[in-house]
């Protein structure tokens, strides 16, 4: 099921919240679990079995790890290794097996060795996200940063928590554990959650989905010229931001409606002046996961040089996004750029007279990177890059302008204005901490504006039906 769908909004959400608030507090974790399983099974009930199996695997290892962590540390480490390998094996099979066979066949064919085929494996929704949460649980229990879940229901509710199940934000068990036992339920928090949900709904349905026809038109052109390659990728990038940050806002808002506080996932990524800064502003919970569970263990436990650890981490981040060479190159280029930035200290010198140029340059480089990201196909992304470099001619915007609706172009303008206002708000906030900002408190005319946007978004959804969130494919 998708947050931005009529069934979710008109049926699932009101029913779930009614049952949730009518249930006794001690039953609420069970309500969350049942509701989340129903939410997940809506797409493919058969994959629920895998989901339950992964949950139980990690729950059981969590208890063993806690038992042997101090009395038999070597056994505990082996148990941890088995638990993590089990999780990665599931991820590897469902996410990378098709790609692996493809690559293997490409290697075998020139050698005259018979190639083989594998039945097409469907990637279960949210797998990359819930496997990461499961890994964070066993590692935290092993490290002693979290107590193991007392009941399977508590742990399963953490893994399955439907607001963040499909595409994050990726949660740490230690932060949710406390909230599963006791959390705040108040009108203030519910109202804030409802407002945040509405904001995310507007971003996704009204803006991201309105930009989709233009982005689709550009991205379906196999051989774009200079103008269409740049504009198309830029529009797709903006669409992706509104889509994913809209999803994250909705998830955070839904969490608040149920008394949870989730971590923030975005902090105006278009303001970044370097790749390093971009990853401090985009998909923050993934960056946090990679830092805690990949980068730091590599540096601290394995003694890997910080630069190499960064390289490996960013390469893995690229591959995590998808099983294709395009994502591999996305990770590779990101890693190289971040190493360069570290080498020349571009990140640690935040104030220079050239900040405007740095900002522009980084934005252009990020748009170029989106060629890999928004196609997921190396050949197609290279054609886009060829177009961006002017090797495929100047390109024409005329046909796109003729064929694009003016409504779509108006929404592109709305999106850009939104980004400029949000960007300025963000800069001012950090320059003068404590100063009030737009939509900080949703009341008065700001509440009116939010409700107007929400009403427009609901009507747009009713008119057009839903479209899935882009990050669901990861």
């Amino acid at each position, binding site marked *: *099921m998708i947050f931005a*769908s*009529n*069934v979710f*909004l*008109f*049926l699932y*959400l*009101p*029913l779930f919240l*009614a049952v949730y608030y009518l249930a006794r507090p001690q039953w609420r974790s069970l309500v969350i679990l049942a509701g989340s399983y129903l939410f997940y099974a*809506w*797409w493919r*009930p*058969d994959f629920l079995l895998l989901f339950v199996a992964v949950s139980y695997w990690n729950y059981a290892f969590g208890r063993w790890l806690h038992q042997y962590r101090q009395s038999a540390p070597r056994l505990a480490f082996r148990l941890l290794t088995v638990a993590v390998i089990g999780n990665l094996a599931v991820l590897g099979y469902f996410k990378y097996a098709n790609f692996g066979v493809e690559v293997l066949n490409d290697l075998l064919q020139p050698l005259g060795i018979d190639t083989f085929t594998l039945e097409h494996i469907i990637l279960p929704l949210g797998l990359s996200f819930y496997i990461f949460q499961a890994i964070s649980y066993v590692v935290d229990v092993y490290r002693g940063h979290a107590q193991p879940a007392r009941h399977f229901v508590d742990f399963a509710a953490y893994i399955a928590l439907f607001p963040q199940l499909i595409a994050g934000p990726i949660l740490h068990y230690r932060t949710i554990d406390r909230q599963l036992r006791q959390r705040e339920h108040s*009108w*203030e928090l519910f*109202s*804030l959650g*409802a*407002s945040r949900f509405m*904001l995310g709904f507007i971003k996704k349905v009204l803006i991201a989905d309105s930009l989709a*026809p233009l*982005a*689709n038109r550009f*991205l379906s*052109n196999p*051989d774009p*010229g200079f103008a269409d390659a740049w504009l198309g990728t830029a529009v797709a990038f903006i669409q992706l931001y509104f889509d994913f940050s809209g999803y994250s806002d909705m998830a955070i808002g839904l969490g608040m409606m149920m008394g949870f506080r989730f971590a*923030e996932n975005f*902090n105006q990524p278009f303001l970044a002046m370097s790749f390093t800064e971009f990853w401090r502003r985009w998909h923050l919970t993934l960056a946090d996961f990679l830092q805690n569970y990949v980068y730091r263990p590599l540096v601290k436990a394995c003694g890997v040089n910080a630069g190499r650890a960064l390289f490996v981490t960013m390469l893995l981040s690229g591959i995590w996004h998808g099983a294709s060479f395009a994502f591999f190159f996305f990770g590779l280029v990101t890693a190289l750029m971040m190493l360069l930035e570290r080498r020349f200290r571009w990140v640690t010198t935040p104030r220079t007279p050239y900040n405007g140029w740095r900002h522009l340059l980084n934005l252009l480089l990020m748009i170029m990177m989106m060629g890999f990201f*928004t196609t*997921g196909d190396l050949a*197609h992304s290279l054609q886009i890059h060829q177009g961006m470099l002017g090797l*495929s*001619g100047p*390109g024409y915007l005329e*046909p796109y302008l*003729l*064929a*694009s*609706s003016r*409504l779509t172009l108006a929404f592109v303008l709305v999106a850009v204005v939104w980004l400029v206002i949000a960007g300025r708000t*963000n800069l001012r906030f950090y320059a003068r901490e404590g100063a009030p*900002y737009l939509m*900080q*408190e*949703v*009341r*008065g005319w700001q*509440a009116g504006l*939010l409700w107007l946007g929400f009403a427009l978004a609901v*009507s*747009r959804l*009713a*008119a057009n039906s*839903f*479209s899935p969130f*882009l990050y669901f*494919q990861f």
Partner: protein
Amino acid sequence: MFPVMTRASRWNGYLFCLLLVAMMIYGVPQLLRYAVSQDQALTLYLDGELARDFEGEFDQQLPLRDLAIRFWGNLRYLVFREGENGVVLGQQHWLYTTEELVYPSRLDTVLTGHLSRIGEFREALARRQQQLILVPVPMKVATYPQYLGRTLPAPVARLYPRLIETLNQRQWPHVDLATAFHQPVGDDERLFLARDTHWSPRGARLAADTIARTWPELQGDRSFRTERLDESRYQGDLTGFILTSDGLAEGYKASEVVPRFETHGDLTTVTSAALFGDQGDRGIDLVGTSYSKIERWHFAGFLQQALAREVSTFAVEARGPYAAMERYLADTHRDAQPDTVIWEFPVRALLQPLDQRKSWQQSLDEQF
């Protein structure tokens, strides 16, 4: 610390709750009604089909849906003077499909790809001892640019002459319809409907006559007579892109009058050779798209009359010209193949790159 919402008025929460209650009052009976009507609910549920089916029905029956569609349709028309994605509003209530206006950035490469694909089909037919005559159908936007209300992009305007020039150079048999289509005709003899993608019966007849004039050697000895029956009102396919409320943009939603035709063969002209088992005239095969498939345009009937030969139609709607030809070539069950195949080929198909990519949004939409 992030500059995000930190507080909200309680009224937001109260209002949202009220909205949820209203939604529940609407949604739950829908769910119950659907659940009662299902016989094999468990089997369908396990396939994931039940959820998709319910969701589709729920979306369609949403009372807000019609209101919302009209609201956005009105907004688009009143503020932006446009219809839904896919249509261009012209002058005097003419509508055009955007497929005729969007051209790829490297049209040369795209055209080369199409020509080699056409060449492959030509060779496949030649191997079956069949001659291919390509009949490129001009674009409505190039035939009637005067109603577009803006300048026709040069690559679009030049597309047809470029194609004919290449076909001449390669000496591929073809029919140039554009010259005939650009002759002035009266308003009541329009070659395309104002609010439909396709040609009118007048355009279809002109195309058939032009084919017969260009290829006199195709003339047979059968006699066919086409009779005009009556007129009926027809809602053009492009009016489906104008989703405004009643009373708004009515001119763009108006139906058009289309005459109906019927073609009869005269059995007395069948040759004695055919009657006594000789193959005789094996007719002509017409392969094409909706221009040939939709009986309202009566293209096959006009072609039979113009060529005085039996015409068998192999047309596929809404899949482009290649799908029809692929299906035609795959059909190997016929005893005798005619010597000539006429391929009705809408020129706008040449603007679509053959290796068009699916965007990630389109791939995801298919998954759900």
